């Protein structure tokens, strides 16, 4: 480029970095890319960094996972253990389990890397869940981001699949119970269940195939898809630009923040090492999944206290809480005790995944939204999200019911009944409660805008009356509290048209009107103060 020529004439020789950059630009066009993206602006808010936690823990998990594959033998061939862990000497086990013991006890750094891998995986999935909740509660899934929301959701689901298959690989008694659990769940699917189970396990459980197959799924298939989705997810974040919270100077058409280079490059780079550091400290000090004391998997052995990792806990809970219903239908067993929980476990995540499409159908809003909403300003959505979380938690409680029972001295039967009732009642209560809280906060905002902040200063007026001085909010704050959009609820419309002919209204349309009333009707959102209201009040007496 022209600058290169001038510098080389002046200094005789261009710096090496510049030469390399020129060389690469000639082949990759990086200058154009950099020009377009280097100064990309990102808004600053801690909750916008949750996705970064996921990205970095994913990278950490991949790096440590690669190291583990160097030493792990995904084989179900039986061997007699003769390795470094004396208490297992002479026990017959699969090569998968034996090599996991070797990684833990004979490989340099093996145990640490295993623990970083496992802790990183738990934090990765937890981070994705939290990131998703942030996006949900701030309405950041609205147009144009619905597809990216689905990408993120798929990443979360695949993260769980990767986690479950990885957890199964050591073939210890705990994870083997999980693999057995999964077989039972597959068998409970009517008609095709048996075939799928036989296909997946290569015959009767446990067979010799499931660990090698899970290995391929765990190290190749799922991470491959996840990497692709991750790249797409990030490209879309760049393309859509990041959402931001309302504030002075922040509009739906701009992004206010810091440039990617140098600020976010430095911050993100540093944050990566902080994430790595936190995970490494935890992994270095805290044991996770000590498979050597759990023993190798044998189908004739089972232990109490066998739970999956946290993200599958709700599926465990659904099965633990479900009554053991079973039909015998024309000589075939239909196992509702397992099949119904399986359906619940499918429906619960689907509800949250498809929510953006429901909301855009409900509002009929085709505009682009780049402002992150405050949860209180969408009371019904926030209440739905909270209710969803509570349902998930109720099932999690069921998943750990034995530990609740022993550690809180409760009857496990009582917990099971609490869950059976609570799964329906608790989300309802949480919904009502959260909605009331949101409406209360909206009223508070309205009050603050119209009447200002209570200063705590008591003033005595000449005629003896005491009043508290209210201080008007700063302009920026006022803008922050009132900049959000409020939808008007749909009206049912007249039952007859202008010519007196009965108007046909589909059931779906009626439902939509009803739902819209529930979302945006009079009692379901507090109208934000209008300019007229504000002026009317402020032009009065100074106080009230």
């Amino acid at each position, binding site marked *: 480029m022209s600058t290169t020529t001038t510098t080389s004439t002046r200094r005789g020789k261009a710096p090496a970095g510049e030469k390399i950059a020129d060389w690469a630009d000639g082949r990759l066009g990086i200058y154009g890319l950099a020009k377009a993206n280097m100064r990309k602006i990102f808004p600053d808010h801690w909750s916008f960094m949750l996705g970064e936690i996921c990205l970095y823990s994913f990278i950490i998990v991949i790096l440590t996972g690669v190291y583990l594959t160097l030493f792990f033998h995904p084989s179900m061939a039986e061997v007699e253990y003769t390795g470094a862990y004396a*208490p297992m000497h002479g026990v017959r086990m699969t090569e998968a389990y034996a090599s996991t013991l070797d990684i833990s006890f004979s490989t340099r750094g093996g145990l640490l890397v295993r623990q970083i891998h496992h802790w990183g995986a738990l934090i990765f999935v937890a981070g994705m869940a939290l990131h998703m909740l942030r996006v949900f509660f701030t309405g950041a899934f609205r147009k144009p981001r619905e597809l990216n929301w689905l990408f993120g959701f798929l990443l979360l689901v695949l993260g769980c699949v990767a986690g479950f298959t990885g957890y199964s690989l050591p073939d210890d008694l705990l994870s083997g119970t999980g693999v057995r659990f999964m077989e039972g769940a597959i068998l409970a699917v009517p008609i095709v269940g048996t075939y799928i189970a036989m296909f997946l396990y290569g015959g009767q459980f446990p067979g010799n195939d499931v660990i090698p197959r899970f290995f391929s799924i765990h190290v190749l298939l799922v991470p491959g898809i996840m990497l692709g989705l991750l790249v797409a997810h990030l490209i879309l974040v760049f393309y859509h630009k990041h959402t931001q919270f309302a504030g002075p100077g922040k509009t739906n058409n701009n992004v206010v923040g810091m440039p990617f280079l140098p600020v976010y490059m430095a911050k993100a780079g540093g944050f990566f090492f902080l994430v790595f550091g936190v995970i490494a400290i935890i992994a270095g000090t805290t044991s996770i*999944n000590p498979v050597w004391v759990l023993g190798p998997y044998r189908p004739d052995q089972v232990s*109490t206290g066998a739970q999956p990792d946290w993200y599958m806990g709700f599926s465990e809970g659904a099965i633990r809480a479900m009554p053991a219903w079973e039909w015998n239908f024309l000589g075939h067993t239909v196992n509702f005790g397992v099949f119904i929980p399986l359906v619940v476990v499918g429906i619960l995540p689907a509800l949250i995944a498809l929510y953006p499409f429901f909301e855009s159908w409900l509002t009929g809003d085709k505009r682009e939204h780049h402002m992150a909403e405050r949860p209180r300003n969408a009371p019904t959505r926030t209440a739905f999200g909270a209710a969803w979380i509570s349902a998930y938690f109720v099932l999690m409680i069921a998943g750990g019911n034995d530990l609740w029972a022993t550690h809180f001295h409760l009857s496990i039967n009582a917990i099971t009944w609490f869950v059976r009732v609570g799964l329906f009642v608790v989300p309802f209560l949480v919904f009502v409660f959260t909605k009331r809280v949101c409406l209360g906060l909206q009223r508070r905002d309205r009050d603050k805008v119209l009447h200002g902040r209570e200063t705590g200063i008591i003033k005595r007026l000449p005629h003896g009356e005491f009043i508290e001085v209210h201080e008007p909010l700063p302009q920026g704050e006022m803008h922050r509290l009132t900049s959000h959009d409020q939808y008007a609820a749909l009206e049912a419309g007249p039952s007859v048209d202008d010519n007196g002919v009965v108007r046909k209204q589909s059931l779906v349309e009626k439902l939509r009107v009803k739902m819209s009333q529930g979302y945006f009707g009079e009692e379901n959102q507090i109208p934000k103060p209008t300019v007229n209201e504000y002026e009317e009040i402020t032009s009065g007496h100074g106080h009230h």
Partner: protein
Amino acid sequence: MKKLSARRRHPLAALVVLLIALAATGGLYATFAPADKAQAQGESTSQQDKIETGKKLFTVGCASCHGTGGQGTTDGPQLVGVGAAAVDFQVGSGRMPLQQPGAQAPRKPRVYSDDEIEALAAYVASLGPGPAVPESAAYAPSGGDVARGGDLFRTNCAQCHNFTGKGGALTDGKFAPPLDGVAPKHIYEAMQTGPQNMPAFPDKSLSSQDKQDIIAFLDEVNGDEAPSEGGFDLGGLGPVAEGLFGWIFGLGALVVVAVWVAAHTAKAKKS
């Protein structure tokens, strides 16, 4: 007397009466209660003396539920034929005497001394033949094969007691207690006698050597000096504890870090 009756409506009168009554009851109890120590110090070495002492202790401390001759009542099971091992386990681990009725008697600080337990055991053993208290050579962890014990434990015990004996829940508030810090002798006796909701594993189903192997395994993974190779073990409870820890301390710490990073940003001007 007149002085006393003049003050009988004093606001504190009731309190004074209550204190006097309590002191009297306590004093009477202290005077007439079975003087445990005095009896146990009798140094009765002969078996017959032990049985005699045991019978006395039994009549005072156990008979109200188990019947005066150990024949059992609606409140407690029959003790004929349970053997000395059962008494040594139940009383030695503090489960008996029962503190309150409930789903199950929990382990608690024991009430009787070694000598008293021995006497009680001798008495109950005299009611009918049953397993005797094992010799220490039979249950010493050093005499067992850890690997074999682990296998046996996972086959016979882990269903209720968890992989490494951390305990587990049974129905209706009953539970399989954690085996942390339980004396090897008591583990042996529990297997032998099957206390409370636990099935018995007599020598026919788990030989003496099997039992010792299991004890050796428990000592290895759950004993006081059991190593935790991976670091802090979170109670050894598995994924529930790990998930909770990961969310609170893992993700929690990362959120704190994120807040910190977000709060420290490049500024247009220094202030």
